[in-house]
């Protein structure tokens, strides 16, 4: 996983609530055994017409948003299926940060595991950032994870909250499996305790 420290880039406005993971990547693209290469499937049902041509009205098909690295959206982003293909598709498209009033739990979790930073900010602030995003190329937004601020194009800094452990893992690009494996002894003794108390789980 790539570390996330700072990011300055174009933000795409996606003023929709309940952007579900079927919308982020429809199920027909889940028949892959790899994590990469899913960028072309991101938002496929919105991005392409039935004949496969691009839908010129969809924001990610417009300049400069083809190069967007940040998405601004409305409430409950990432609801629905647990598919990690959703953050994989966003990442492969080039998105490293999603800003919304709130996120569905599983998507929120999956994002951190892939170096995508989901930032929760109040709706009125998201609305301001949405207006910034509509200004396109001239309105780059910056994220500073170390300082936990979003910097608007006018220089205003907006602080955001983030879980300290997740911030640490993201800043350092660490995967948590290696860390948990170091707690193998604690897991061993848990299993011994549980087996004594609930032997039927170890039939």
């Amino acid at each position, binding site marked *: 996983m790539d570390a996330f420290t700072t990011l300055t880039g174009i933000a795409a406005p996606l003023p929709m609530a309940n952007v579900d993971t079927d919308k982020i990547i429809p*199920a027909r693209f889940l028949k892959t055994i790899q994590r990469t290469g899913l960028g072309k499937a991101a938002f496929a049902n919105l991005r392409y017409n039935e004949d496969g041509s691009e839908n010129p009205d969809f924001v990610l098909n417009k300049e400069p948003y083809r190069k967007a690295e940040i998405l601004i959206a409305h409430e*409950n982003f990432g609801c629905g299926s647990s598919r990690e293909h959703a953050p994989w598709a966003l990442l492969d498209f080039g998105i490293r940060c999603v800003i919304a009033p709130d996120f569905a739990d*599983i998507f929120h979790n999956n994002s951190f595991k892939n170096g995508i930073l989901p930032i929760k900010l109040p709706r009125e602030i998201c609305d301001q950032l949405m207006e910034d995003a509509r200004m396109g190329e001239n309105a780059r937004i910056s994220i500073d994870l170390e300082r936990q601020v979003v910097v608007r194009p006018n220089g205003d800094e907006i602080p955001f909250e983030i879980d300290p*452990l997740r911030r640490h893992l993201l800043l350092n690009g660490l995967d*948590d499996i290696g860390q*948990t494996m170091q*707690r*193998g002894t604690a897991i061993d003794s848990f299993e011994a305790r549980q087996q004594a108390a*609930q032997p039927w789980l170890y039939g």
Partner: protein
Amino acid sequence: MSATKPRTLYDKIFDAHLVETLPDGTALLYIDRHLVHEVTSPQAFEGLRMAGRPVRRREGTMAVIDHNIATDESRYTGRIEDPESRLQVETLEKNVAEFDVPYIPLTDARQGIVHVVGPEQGLSLPGMTIVCGDSHTSTHGAMGALAFGIGTSEVEHVLATQTLLQKRAKNMRVTVDGVLPKGCTAKDIVLAIIGKIGTAGGTGHVIEFAGSAIRALDMAGRFTVCNMSIEGGARAGMIAPDETTFEYVKGRPFAPQGEALERAIAWWKSLPSDEGAHFDTEVVLDAAEIVPMVSWGTSPEDVLPITAVVPDPASAKDEARRDQLQRMVEYMGLTPGQKLSDLKVDVVFIGSCTNSRIEDIRAAADIVRGKAVAPGVRAMVVPGSGLVKKAAEAEGLDAVFKNAGFEWREAGCSMCLGMNPDKLTPGQRCASTSNRNFEGRQGPGGRTHLLSPAMAAAAAITGHLTDVREMA
């Protein structure tokens, strides 16, 4: 935590699986049961392979194939036609062999949808922590377990360590008291709940479903309710284990037997929430007020009684909601003010991890018996497992459906999610017993109306969404 402080069902199972608490308060939670399927596991096994890590507890793991397979007999006779699906299935088979993970293959009578197979085999038991790379893992919470969906990185984490890093969720209790009116089912209860709390109402929470109407449900009904917890935003939904649960567990192949079962039941009886336990959020519904429900829009919160009409976007409370309603009305091909019971359907799908158990199939058969599918409607029944299919055939239910013009298919996820050959074509309208009505969920441009098995059967017979209470 003081031992005397009243705790919820969720708190008790969480505490019983706490390996360690990290300095920042994150819990390392032990996972008893890990269910694996072909779509969300290949990258996880690849991760293990790259790091040279084994599967920590093979006997805590079970793999099945359900999402991407065809539900006709072609899957037994030759190789899987779609090359990508074939590769995914072959990859799972290679992985379970290499990592020595227990596996129920496609040709096994026990094969089926992972959330039907787990409880059916006794792999899912009360008091367990259960995970799977699928958001509808919440289904297993009906056993009185803590069960939730995870992403592929977490699948790899569980395979390698049999644990997950978790923050404690908030407790929500949804109490449904009273007697459910005739024609209403567990599906109507859960659709009514989601309509009330909204699709993000349970975010950050684990829901405990309680009350006399929930207690009165059989296990199939309880699975249906917990299955759709995630549609209300909650990763997990649970129902306290009781005699109904214990009776269900008895005799299942992987369940404890004899003295071990007695000992297990003694522990399971200690799990229900204590009197006075704290719930951060409480929601109450009166079962007597529930009517047969149907979704009209493209989010599971957009549900209405079958007696209602299509909402008018002009009456929305604000501009954002108006835009949302407008988009849904257009996508779904509806006219504001139109009666929901006037909507003609092209396809009827009875199946999915929400509603594909024998009880669901019986409820649909009771409506269909002696009648015929309306002209021009494609109607299908997809049992949740090979064993459900066999049981239904033993009762002659396959003949009820086939005689009426239904397709009687092989077990799998089928038309719930549009990643196998069972898909809607653009513009088709489907009465579906599945769980999600998102845009394109059942195939690009498809239009989904969520409802109960009896309501779906009624729609197949009349050719339009129908109030099942009016069926003779």
